[in-house]
């Protein structure tokens, strides 16, 4: 039942509210709709003198061209391998650290946590020059494993903190009972604690994967070789090639490069939002 006492003033407010909400959502989605529309146009209609939102005739040929592009396969593979590798390393180093941070107090722990915090305050841009120098001298530019390790180091601090928080929420009595039953610390973590925080691990993995997938600068600077580049790097290179650019193809490429991220986001949006707000709101 709608409240019956809604007077003219509150109806007016409700109307204004709906207009405002429509403006907000429209301004967020509008540019993306335009990109989708362009990706469905043929190359001629995409650059017509009178632009129109509805593609007529609509065509999927740009998407076919993206999938058939000769370097698309390796770029997609690189994007997947880098993101999966970085997340795997970040979890492998972050889970044990988060467990110990949650469960144990020991001398030097504060210093360790401060080091992790301090490294999270070093921006990637400040590391461009020294990292390039060091990799160049070690002959490690264009090395896939090195890229993965660098990407992992960017998401490692947040992984430790998230894990610490998730494990904090698991009652410590579970660990104590397991200990009495003779389980080792490793068994307690892997057999009892980790299954309980599985949704949290999935969320951290997805957030880390989105960050890594979306990276451009790390790959572009430390791996200039074409065979090492990702979808993001390939997209930017198309834009650089401004003369030969086909906007309908480029928009289709941008959408294909974004789809995995949008799907992952929608899959874990509740956790994603919780991750964004963690610690940001002062009560």
């Amino acid at each position, binding site marked *: 039942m709608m409240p019956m006492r809604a007077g003219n003033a509150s109806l007016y407010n409700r109307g204004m509210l709906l207009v405002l*909400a429509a403006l907000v959502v429209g301004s967020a*989605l509008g540019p993306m709709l335009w*990109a989708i529309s362009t990706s469905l146009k043929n190359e001629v209609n995409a650059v017509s003198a009178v632009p129109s939102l509805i593609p007529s005739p609509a065509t999927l040929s740009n998407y076919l061209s993206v999938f058939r592009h000769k370097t698309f396969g390796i770029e997609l593979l690189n994007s997947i391998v880098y993101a999966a590798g970085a997340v795997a390393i970040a979890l492998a180093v972050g889970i044990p*650290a988060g467990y110990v941070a949650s469960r144990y107090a020991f001398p030097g722990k504060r210093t*360790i946590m401060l080091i992790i915090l301090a*490294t999270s305050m070093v*921006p990637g841009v400040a590391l461009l020059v020294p990292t390039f120098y060091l990799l160049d001298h070690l002959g490690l530019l264009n090395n896939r494993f090195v890229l993965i390790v660098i990407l992992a180091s960017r998401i490692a601090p947040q992984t430790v903190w998230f894990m610490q928080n998730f494990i904090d929420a698991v009652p410590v009595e579970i660990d104590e009972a397991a200990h009495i039953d003779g389980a080792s610390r490793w068994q307690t973590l892997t057999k009892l604690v980790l299954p309980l925080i599985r949704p949290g691990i999935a969320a951290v993995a997805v957030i880390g994967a989105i960050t890594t997938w979306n990276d451009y600068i790390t790959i572009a600077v430390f791996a200039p070789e074409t065979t090492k580049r990702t979808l993001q790097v390939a997209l930017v290179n*198309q834009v650089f090639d401004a003369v030969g650019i086909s906007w309908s193809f480029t928009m289709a490429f941008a959408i294909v490069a*974004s789809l995995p991220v949008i799907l992952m986001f929608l899959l874990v949006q509740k956790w994603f939002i919780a991750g964004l707000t963690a610690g940001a709101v002062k009560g």
Partner: protein
Amino acid sequence: MLWFVPVLLLLLIVTLYPTLFVVWMSFQKTRYYDLLGFVGLANYLSALTSRAFWETTYTSLVYMAGSLVLSLGLGVVAALALNALGRSGVVLRVLTLVPWTLSMAVVGTIWLWLFNPAYGPISYTMREVGLSPGLMLGDPDLALWLVILVTSWWSFPYSMVIVTAAIQSIPRELYEAVSIDGGNWRAKLRYVTWPHLIPTLGSTALTLGILYLTLITLLIVLTGGGPLGATTTLSFEVFRGTVQAIDIGPTAVWSIAILLANIGLGVLYMRLTGRVTG
């Protein structure tokens, strides 16, 4: 503790060591990427007395301030509007958050197309209403403002989510108290919501400020630092210095300037949110 060793090794080698190394580089005489010996503060002196450094710092500050005002402003409006809608606002909020998940490369590419002076919908609309779109991102007087607009489009959903969480943490009793005293929604906004939002806006401004300070990719795609250096920020200049590699010493100094600014904002953030470690 042994279980901390892997993560510490990773961070010490990949983050901390290069951080110390860039400090060492900044004290070296350099040609291209060659380190030619200790020169003390010479690089610092030449950077801090150069016009380019201060002009770029100014551009960075304008870029950060403009993006902050727009992103936080839009974020607050979006949060209030969608929160007042109740349940249907939840879905709309998720949709509004999608731009934030897109990469800077994708965001830049989409807007480069929207701003296209010949075929883009924005310049078309401007011509239809009798305005001259000019060169859009190619216009030195306009480019920075358009980049600020794009940055805000991308990041206002983040502000919205944080502000929404802050609004939802306000106890209902406070609104009821205003109602009992005969206050309308304006009074609620002014005396309950707003005072509760201020600290959150502060911490969000710091998070976003760090992001804007260190952002590069969006600038690479949209303007490449141009036209005529109008959108060259400190971070963009470090990127250019790294890949052009004409003389890496001064670039090391610029890197350290960004590093110190980032640490300053980060420490301020810790103070403000009271986040403790250990």
